[in-house]
């Protein structure tokens, strides 16, 4: 699967706009596992998306395909091999 990185966070992803991710292990892949993977591989990217308690930041949206995970199962949203996950700033982030 791939993670699309917004322009504001590319500095934390080695300048890349897309980051490939392969989730191994026995855990069924979900958004939490993907973000845990990012915490281990790109910690400065992950902490912009979740706070230190693992909660999604209020004005950050994570999409699986075209759907916001807040409209699915939040971080328990299941992921398949071909899914594209996009991190995007919400439009609600202040004046």
């Amino acid at each position, binding site marked *: 699967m791939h993670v699309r990185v917004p322009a*504001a*966070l590319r500095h934390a992803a080695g300048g890349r706009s897309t980051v490939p991710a392969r989730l191994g292990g026995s855990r069924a892949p979900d958004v939490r596992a993907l973000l845990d993977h990012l915490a281990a591989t790109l*910690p*400065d990217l992950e*902490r*912009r*998306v979740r*706070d*230190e*308690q693992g*909660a999604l*930041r209020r*004005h*950050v949206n994570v999409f699986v395909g075209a759907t916001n995970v807040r409209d699915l199962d939040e971080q328990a949203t299941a992921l398949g091999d071909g899914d594209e996950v996009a991190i995007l*700033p*919400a439009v609600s*982030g*202040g004046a």
Partner: protein
Amino acid sequence: MGTLLMIGTRKGLFLARTDERRSWALEGPLFPMNAVYAVAIDTRPDTPRLLVGADSEHWGPSIFTSDDLGATWDEPEGGALRFPAETGAALARAWQLQPAGADQPGVVWAGVEPAALFRSDDGGSTFSLVEGLWDHPDRPQWMPGGGGLCLHTVVPHPTDPDRVVIAVSAAGVYRTEDGGRSWQSSNTGITAWHNPDPHPPFGQCVHKIARHPERPDQMFLQNHGGVYRSDDGGATWGEIHEGLPATFGFPLVTHPHQPGTAYVYPLVADAHRMPPDDRCRVYRTTDAGESWHPLSAGLPQDHAYITVLRDAMCTDDAPTAGVYLGTRTGEVFASADEGESWASIARHLPDVLSVRAAQVG
């Protein structure tokens, strides 16, 4: 010697530099769209270190440092300040970055939201939670003020590393005399106007505390309503606002060289947060609050509805002290003569949240 003024605003950091404190060169915004509630200039190292608390509405809070006067900025991988997992808390904002005394090089305190105190021993690159305050039995009963439940003021003792005084909105004053292991509320004499019992042990809405390093037991305090002085290191407080046009306000700063001299910016009341008579005036005492005198030369005196937030007033450390005033209307006024006269040195900025100034280089 030049002077650097750090200006934290709701939408980024601005730096103003000058050689003679008459004309200023403005740079910025750095960290655009980040709210900069906390700025500090640590003048203890040979090369001063700048510290910035910058909060992105989207991407969360950060603490950056610069060892080249703002040309480049550093943040450690993983961030400078994180709540431990077992606290269940997450950093919302750094409200105060405060270098300790000269005898403690490398020690920097951070006051944050949710209300907690952190300590750094590496000049502000990384911080650890002060567990003695986090575990205080009062803490679950602390109530947030209008700005959230924030620890916004840290006043280290200039020579005794065991003694630190802090203020939390709206829990009031706490102090430690054992380096942060234990804390006691320290609000005796401060009125809690918003409370059925106006003199609870904690719950006061203290806005700012300052002291002069040469007279460390004398402290000044701007409360939600009332200005106070302590002569016993913060253990007890007495009112000193007679002679002021109003008792409400946010900032309070002490003169860098003259013990007993302090500056406040009165507002009419919490229900009318504008200066009395719609005139922008700083008030100064030179006798530890026995009397107050308005300073207005060069400040707007007609239809001026100007608010100054708690960290948006400061002094510098020049032989003739400079005083600086940042406004919610995005203007910065500077005085190079201890407040006698003022000039606007920056206009049309975002709301000013914090200012700090020092002689550098």
